[in-house]
């Protein structure tokens, strides 16, 4: 291990991603019923957490924060577009 290397911003991002995963794991366990959240709130929270994680991976691990504007915009459009579309399809599901 190299201490200079460990101070890289990706280390902090990685720590946050691990914590976010633990939160999702805890929230999702047993259907989340013990956390007194409604089912739609729980599911939307899980989806939003996932896409926040994805944006961190894209920007800090894939280094898109240093990429040309067009590539940054395409990646962010994917993150926001897919996240919003999933929540929309979930929310307006015919049998919900």
């Amino acid at each position, binding site marked *: 291990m*190299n201490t200079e*290397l460990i101070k*890289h911003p*990706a*280390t902090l991002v*990685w720590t946050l*991603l*691990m914590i976010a*995963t633990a939160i*999702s*794991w805890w*929230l*999702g*366990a047993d*259907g*989340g019923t013990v956390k007194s959240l409604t*089912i739609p709130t*729980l*599911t939307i929270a*899980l*989806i939003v*957490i*996932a*896409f926040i*994680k*994805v944006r961190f*991976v*894209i920007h*800090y*691990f*894939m*280094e*898109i924060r*240093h*990429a*040309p504007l067009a*590539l940054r915009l*395409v990646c962010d459009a*994917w993150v926001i*577009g*897919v996240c919003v*579309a*999933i929540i929309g*399809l*979930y929310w*307006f*599901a*015919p*049998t*919900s």
Partner: protein
Amino acid sequence: MVSSSKNHVPGEVGIWVLILGDMVVFGLFFLVFVYYRGFDIELYTQSQKALNQNYGAFNTLLLLASSWFVVMAVESARADHGRRAAKYFGLALLCGSGFSVVKVVEYSEKLAAGLTITSNEFFMYYYIFTGLHFLHVVIGMGVLIFLIVKTRAHTFSRQDMVAVESGASFWHLVDLLWIVLFPLLYLMK
């Protein structure tokens, strides 16, 4: 340093065509899954109960760790520390192997319980999406082995660094896709 530039595409442009193409395809998979789920929520939530959330979550942690190791490997390669880069790529490969072991155990348990791709709609999507993702993991592990060999061998030319960044970006894609697959298949209600 390369990463401080505001106009740096990590890796070859070609790898980004592949990555963005994969993101579009998997993006459609996610939407198709949530759309059809809406027509039979009962079936999807009942089927989901047969999945082991702990496997899914543990595999998320393994891929996140592997991605962090890959970032450390790329930074080491940039600093011209080839052997250190190879070591970090090796640790990422170890995490990828761990993911694979968990996946094989998980598939065997499901198959032993009689849950196959033809069991129902949920399991059809489960096997197709996780299977295609697993194919990415296997290809990614091949890439990591190539990068271990490459970084161990010698000091880097500009071209070698492009290969390192391309391979690293592909591995992060593998992580990214699983981050969404995990809540969709294992957790959402």
